[in-house]
């Protein structure tokens, strides 16, 4: 006879005796949420004999039994009972009957779900490939839809929701101006500062102006602005549209007969297309201002000299090219944001994933497009 006391002063305890084919277990006290974990542990530690033909559980002394107590009894059953053995309860009161029935109930076969089975590696790869193909198809459909809606709106401009477009222009453009300005100003400042250290050795201070303006206008201005807007607004688009999906608002729009691309995507897309080039120009300006501060403050350049050098360095072609690039980035940011939003299925976590994915995808696409354009410009321009 082994006896284990679970609580002080021996309110709940567990003990067992064993002869040839019969295991007698005695439980006393309360079998509830508080004692269940300790009891389970005690049963494991007691190393009960397995595959017994008959198990008798004496519940005479049990004062309280609930679903947590059932867990203990189930544990005894699965640990010790052989396939065709019997399990009997002695001294159970009528109150406990409902819970004892639970011990006899077979576990229901789990409802098959794609989540519960562990797929093999091939299956996994196939699954991923299918997902990717479907993703690509969905993206192409989205782009096609977008082109169709664009033509519809071009033929019939009154179908565009102008007030929404203006609101989005404000959110994407005006509201982003302070952060774009600050980051660009500091960027110009840092670039001028770092390059000055090198250029000063050759007495080529004035070229700080060229360096800042050229790198900003050609590359950094468009890229920095696009990344900031992707983080601010691309994510917002995905989250807005995603939560509308979750709340069935997109379904409601569809059944009200609205073209959801015209209603939800075009205002965001056109707003981004309008304001991103402007933001980029502001970014260029503020970076040049940052460079100017360093140039005038530390390198003894005159404001006039710095500006003349800047204007001489940048050509109109550079600006046109950078505006073209910016328009492409605007398409990528708003398109990705809205597309990820529409892909949301399920609940709040899906919205979160869509938001993250929108930012990551659009930054990736921005950098990719920029690299491709750089190569094209090099060999064509």
């Amino acid at each position: 006879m082994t006896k284990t006391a679970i609580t002080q002063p021996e309110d709940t305890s567990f003990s067992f005796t064993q002869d040839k084919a019969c295991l007698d277990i005695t439980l006393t006290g309360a079998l509830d949420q508080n004692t269940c974990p300790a009891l389970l542990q005690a049963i494991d530690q007691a190393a009960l004999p397995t595959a017994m033909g008959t198990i008798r559980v004496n519940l005479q002394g049990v004062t309280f039994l609930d679903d947590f107590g059932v867990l203990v009894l189930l544990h005894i059953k699965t640990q010790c009972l052989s396939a065709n053995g019997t399990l009997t309860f002695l001294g159970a009161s009528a109150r406990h009957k409902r819970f004892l029935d639970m011990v006899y109930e077979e576990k229901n076969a789990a409802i098959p779900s794609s989540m519960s089975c562990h797929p093999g590696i091939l299956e996994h790869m196939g699954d991923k490939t299918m997902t990717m193909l479907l993703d690509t198809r969905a993206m192409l459909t989205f782009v096609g839809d977008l082109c169709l809606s664009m033509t519809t709106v071009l033929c019939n401009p009154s179908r565009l929701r102008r007030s929404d477009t203006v609101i989005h222009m404000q959110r994407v453009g005006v509201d982003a101006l302070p952060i774009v300005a600050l980051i660009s100003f500091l960027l110009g400042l840092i670039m001028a500062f770092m390059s000055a250290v090198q250029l000063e050795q050759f007495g080529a201070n004035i070229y700080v102006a060229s360096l800042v303006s050229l790198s900003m206008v050609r590359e950094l201005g468009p890229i920095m602005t696009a990344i900031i807007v992707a983080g601010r607004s691309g994510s917002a688009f995905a989250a807005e549209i995603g939560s509308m999906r979750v709340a069935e608002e997109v379904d409601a729009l569809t059944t009200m007969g609205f073209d959801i691309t015209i209603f939800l995507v075009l205002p965001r897309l056109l707003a981004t297309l309008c304001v991103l080039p402007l933001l980029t120009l502001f970014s260029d300006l503020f970076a040049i201002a940052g460079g100017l501060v360093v140039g005038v403050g530390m390198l003894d350049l005159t404001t006039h000299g710095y500006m003349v050098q800047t204007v001489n360095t940048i050509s109109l072609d550079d600006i046109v090219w950078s505006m073209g690039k910016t328009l492409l980035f605007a398409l990528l940011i708003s398109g990705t944001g809205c597309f990820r939003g529409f892909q949301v299925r399920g609940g709040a976590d899906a919205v979160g994933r869509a938001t993250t994915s929108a930012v990551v995808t659009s930054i990736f696409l921005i950098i990719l497009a920029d690299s491709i354009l750089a190569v094209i410009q090099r060999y064509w321009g």
Partner: protein
Amino acid sequence: MDTTLHPAIEVRNLTMGFADLILLQHADFEVKQGEIFVILGGSGCGKSTLLKHILGLYSPMQGSILIHGTPLNPDDPSAYQAILKTFGVMYQGGALFGSMTLAENVALAVEEYTDLPDAAIRDLVEIKLRQVGLAGFEDHLPMEVSGGMKKRAAIARALVLNPKILFLDEPSAGLDPITSADLDELIREINASLGTTVVIVSHELPSIFSIAHRVIMLDKESRSIIAEGDPKFLRDHSPHAMVRRFFNRQAMQKNTQAENTHAENSTP
């Protein structure tokens, strides 16, 4: 095409579900024009999903759906748009646009599909909101009103263009008995005065008995329609015990099978 000869909705051999979950197999039923038709069934048996199939938001795995005799096919935009114009829908969660006031929500479709001047639209919206007992809440955002009020605003939005077919997904869930009875009255009035066909998903027995002309009941286990007809008749005479229990609001008898199969094990 003369649409008056056809049933409002015909569902033919419909099999529906999601990737690995089939909810309904080879279902056939039709909704006649001008009737109040209720879809019943236990929680999670696919009532909302069936509704979304009829709305063309999900495509069936098999079978077809006809609206006033025209096949429902979302891939044919112009025909689909024409069908959607005859629909008014209230979703289970309301699905009000969160960034618009109740009045703007209701006005949205009117602005899109009619040439009414702004003042007339305002009046129309006020009338509709008053019908559902929401006078005075025009300028509230959806998040500033209670759950039941959201439902009612969504009903007003569904009603605003006097649709030929009105779909309501659990309209009275979460409403107090009086408001719920008012709503039943409103549905009956609209049905009687405009001949609107109404398709309702509902669990509210009193409301089902008072307004439904015909019901169907879906069953998750057999993935089929287990009852179709007049609710009062089904309550008393359905061959399915489950259907009678549903209407009489009885609990499922505790499954005694487990005890029987383990009789040799259990001698408590």
